[in-house]
């Protein structure tokens, strides 16, 4: 008896230590990052007293500002489009039985599974071929830029949006739409007044998720970006290669804060009124 108790005590102790280590491992880098973003020293890892200079530099640096503006433009536009397309795809897959339904279902999950690098190479190849084709046939010249970045972001965001919206739709009783139809609503009105309000939390959640992913993406963007379409994460990545400056810390903290905020909002939205569709 007593040995088992001791063993249990030992196991418990080991587990606690493990948990602490995991959290340290997770959060120590974040804590360091935040701390050194306030450090008044040109070397990244040395504490030189408290300062807000790096944040001020972030606000004044024209390149950073340009990258930020590109990031926001791309994120907002790609989110808008992917929410519309993703929601429509979710509705089609969840509410209508058509030939090849299963196949499209699987296709939709693909961009989530494919490694970023693969996706990036695919997109690059696609755009190169497309531009060559357009040049050869119509004599129109295109170059990589804002449009290619945005299109790529739309391509991977659709999957995330439609997965989130589908989860919401699956939990929603189809009889509700039938009830609306029975009560003289046309297909459109049934969607507008019954389906849409009920899946809105899913749509908002999907949108915030798309926004987060778009704002964070480096790999794919780097492949398809051209001059003048450098996003903030890509810019930061470039800075690192040129040598680390504490400015990166400040930029990273801002990006981190924005991401956390968006993910939290997304979770909140998906949970909102979760009990009412049961």
């Amino acid at each position, binding site marked *: 008896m007593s040995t088992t108790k001791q063993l249990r005590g030992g196991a418990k102790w080991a587990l606690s230590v493990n948990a602490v280590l995991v959290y340290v491992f997770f959060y120590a880098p974040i804590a360091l990052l935040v701390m050194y973003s306030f450090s008044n020293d040109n070397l990244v890892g040395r504490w030189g007293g408290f300062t807000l200079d790096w944040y001020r530099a972030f606000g004044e640096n024209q390149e950073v500002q340009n990258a930020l503006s590109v990031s926001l433009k791309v994120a907002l536009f790609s989110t808008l489009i992917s929410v519309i397309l993703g929601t429509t795809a979710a509705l089609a897959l969840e509410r209508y039985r058509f030939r090849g339904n299963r196949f499209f279902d699987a296709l939709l999950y693909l961009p989530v599974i494919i490694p970023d690098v693969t996706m990036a190479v695919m997109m690059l190849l696609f755009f190169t071929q497309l531009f060559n084709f357009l040049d050869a046939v119509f004599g129109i010249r295109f170059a990589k830029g804002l449009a290619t970045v945005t299109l790529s972001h739309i391509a991977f965001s659709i999957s995330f949006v439609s997965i989130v919206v589908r989860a919401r739709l699956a939990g929603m009783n189809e009889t509700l739409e039938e009830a609306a139809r029975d009560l003289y609503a046309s297909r459109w009105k049934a969607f507008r007044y019954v389906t849409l309000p*009920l899946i809105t939390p899913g749509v908002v959640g999907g949108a915030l998720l798309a926004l987060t992913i778009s704002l964070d993406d480096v790999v794919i963007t780097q492949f398809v970006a051209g001059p003048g379409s450098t996003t903030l994460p890509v810019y930061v990545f470039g800075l690192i290669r040129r040598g680390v400056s504490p400015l990166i810390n400040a930029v990273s903290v801002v990006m981190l804060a924005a991401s956390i905020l968006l993910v939290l909002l997304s979770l909140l939205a998906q949970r909102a009124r979760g009990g009412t569709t049961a």
Partner: protein
Amino acid sequence: MTEQSTSAVSINGVTKRFGDVVAVDNVNLEIADGEFFAMLGPSGCGKTTTLRMIAGLEFPTEGSLQIFGEEVGTLPPNKRPVNTVFQNYALFPHMNILDNVSFGLRMKGVDKKTASAQANEMIDLVRLGGMEKRRPNQLSGGQQQRVALARALVNKPKVLLLDEPLGALDLKLRQDMQTELKSLQRELGVSFVFVTHDQEEALTMSDRIAVMHDGQLLQVGNPEQLYSQPVNRFVADFIGQTNLIDATVADDEMIVLANGTKVRAPNPHPPGTKVAMSLRPESIMIGDREAVPSESQSTSLSGVISSVVYLGHSVVYTVNVDWMPLEVRVPAVAGVSRYEAGAEIAIWWDRLSDWIVPDEGYRG
């Protein structure tokens, strides 16, 4: 718009197939205006599918379906003058009660003020006044049920379709709602088409009942007809309790039971036909063997009592007649002694209380 005799719903040779499954099989049915009509049958027999075809939520594979003389075959549900009370109510969770009830009117283009006024009236009628601002999940099952009724009835449908509307309620509430539904129907004079698999509910509430099995319509009639003149073995067994005794037709007056006993049972079937005789437990009399009245000699059997159950108002005996047990139910009369298990007795029945149904095939 047409002559007075037009049926509220007229179903002609309607079949509905889902892939290989024949959910509804060549059904013909007329439902009269102002009638309380029940569709009764075991699970999976096609009741819901039939109802959904009337609502327009499903379209027939074959056949014609008319509502007040107008062909509605593939008309979408929002273009039909019928409304449905769904099995699990299907109230809109994101709207309050008032918005739920006025939804149909708003969709029809009635202005908000008029719609609200009419909805409020209906909410009062189903005794939910004061709950207009609540959400459906803030109501009890019975209250939600009444919201579903109000939401359908406020549109003044020509036919109201109800799919097992009382299925989710407990017994007491169920009985109250049965009475309430029935009186509401009388008050409004609208045809109710009511789906249930509870035969007692169908018998107590309906003007007429359709019994379905395996997608087929077996019999349509008023409760008394179904109870006393079932067209086949299935209906006899399904409606109320009965003893089904296998037999073979000897001639148009007599049938032969399994042990060779001949009993009198006038029937229209040719000699040799396999039939079943349906004897309701309450129409069988029980007594000493020498007490069988002379006019009942040819409609009697001797047996041994194997169990006695006292139910207060009646006594239920299980009587073994040679090859099978029969259930006999007699009123419990104070002061009259009852038989004990093991007693050797006779049972007999009135010549008009038996009913012969074909043994095979549901269509007779």
